[in-house]
């Protein structure tokens, strides 16, 4: 089946938006002259180029392409990013071992083949391994348990 190339349309619009964003915000910085370029000069010029390229990409979307069957992995994307962000939030307070354990448990759910017991073992193993490799081995200054546990 042939459809309009929505990938080109979306990416084109994305480039236009990014370019416009850099140009608009860049107006707050001194533009300067060609001889003495201010901090706003290069970003503004690049932003305009990006808008133009984005428009070119967008205009090509009238071309018909075969329908693409590949799926978007929204669930793994969301779960893994949430896991990373939670890791960031708790690594100071809870310490390395709980943070690694929780990150491994959350991200394991991103797989369709998730099973509780192997994942628990893996998460525990990773937590211990990380502590010994990074803290004991490489000497990184991460406490195994953080301030939330009274350390």
């Amino acid at each position, binding site marked *: 089946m042939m459809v309009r190339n929505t990938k080109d349309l979306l990416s084109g619009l994305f480039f236009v938006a990014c370019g416009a964003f850099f140009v608009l915000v860049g107006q707050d910085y001194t533009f300067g002259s060609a*001889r003495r370029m201010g901090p706003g000069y290069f*970003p503004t010029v*690049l932003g305009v180029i990006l808008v133009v390229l984005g428009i070119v990409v967008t205009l090509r979307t009238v071309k018909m392409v075969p329908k693409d069957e590949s799926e978007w992995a929204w669930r793994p994307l969301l779960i893994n990013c949430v896991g990373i*962000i939670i890791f*960031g939030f708790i690594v100071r307070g809870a310490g390395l071992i709980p943070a690694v354990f929780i990150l*491994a448990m959350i991200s394991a759910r991103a797989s369709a083949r998730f099973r509780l017991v192997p994942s628990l073992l893996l998460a525990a193993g990773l937590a211990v391994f*990380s502590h010994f490799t990074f803290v004991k081995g490489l000497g990184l200054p991460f406490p195994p348990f953080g301030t939330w546990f009274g350390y």
Partner: protein
Amino acid sequence: MELFGNLWLGLQVAFTLQNLTYCFIGTLLGTMIGVLPGLGPAATIAMLLPATFVLPPIASLIMLAGIYYGASYGGSTTAILINVPGESSSIVTALDGHQMARQGRAGPALATAAIGSFFAGSVATLIIALFAPVLAEVALKFGPAEYFSLMVLGLIASVVLASGSLVKALAMIVLGLLLGLVGSDVNSGTPRYTFGFPELADGIGFIGVAMGMFGIGEVIRNLENETTRSSLVQKITSLMPSREDFRMMWKPIVRGTALGSILGILPGGGALLSAFASYSMEKKLAKDPSRFGKGAIEGVAGPESANNAGAQTSFIPMLTLGIPSNPVMALMIGAMIIQGIQPGPQVMTGKPDLFWGLIVSMWLGNAMLVILNLPLVGIWVRLLRVPYHLLFPAILVFCSIGVYSLNNATFDIYIMAVFTVLGYVLVKLECEPAPLLLGYILGPMMEEYLRRAMLLSRGDPMVFIERPISGVMLAAAVLAMASVLLPAFKKTREEALKEE
């Protein structure tokens, strides 16, 4: 001879116990992670970068280079054994290598890849030692206008020789350049696009960008269709190629090495193009081309030599000009900057021990690969069987700890999450992330050279055309762009980059 003096200096640096150890650890770790399914060299390096920051600069670069060839070789191993190329340049190896494996000749295929890679690596190392000083000499005479034009040429060439839509790749470069500008402006100190985040004053953390787009982004892509992964690994009975095999492989190895060494120097060329070019050359030269795709040993020997030679000589523009020709070199430049070394021609004159130590260690690394890979292949095969759903949480953990450990800043972890999303969405929209990373690395440098050139010329942009070297480079960039639009070239480009 100056060359021997230099190589002698390099030997003294590379043969210290410390540097030998890190070279060994690098190749070992690189191979180990490279054979894990779905992790290419860029992802492997991004993941292991933070581990090298605690080391002195020389040791860290030696280790990173080791990780690079280790991971490349690991990619070929998976291509041969399970038909899963770890990186784009091993796609070619998979064509005939996996067929050989299915005919029960996995051992000779692996050995051929190792021997070809070693020969190519040795020759390419010598080429670097011979040509890098010459190029650096020329580059030392470059003014800001030449540097600016060189970066334009490098960026353009890198997308012309890559696959996919040209306009999108150009847009990705520009977006990368813009992202590279975030942070304090060097001249005025004005914070740009930081939105009050003090963490952004030094720019968007390089490690977060690289790990998000290449490390975790790749994990998400692998999770798209988990079930289709074949875990059928071919048995390895004997490793040694027969006398007949040796007779058939040596010419393709020599030709592949020559081709790869030349193509590797071109920006954007590197390993992928070399491998494809070598494969089609061997097919054309073969007495019986129909054997190709059915387990022809030349189809493994040529491309494997070519991609290793190309991977090696792509260090030349990186070391002498400070210009990355592919994402891996962009990562190397990022690592050098974090170590406090500004890449460029002054590295060779200012830090000869680092430069020559790295070059000699490249040869050592290649030798270690052969010694390491052939006896240890049994272990790599076992690693291949690690199920992915148990593997990727570990990748996530190591990336998160790595990105956090660099500055003890949780902000970098969030940057990584943002660029994971951005990288994945862009890949799904068929925008390759590699040009963005190259632009991101070159953004601040390009702006600086542009400003200086325009200041010297009193605001006259003609300086870029009037200065001969700069003019030639810009003309080459225009020609490269124009050639893509020509129908004849367009067809060849599509054919050359088509995945068979």
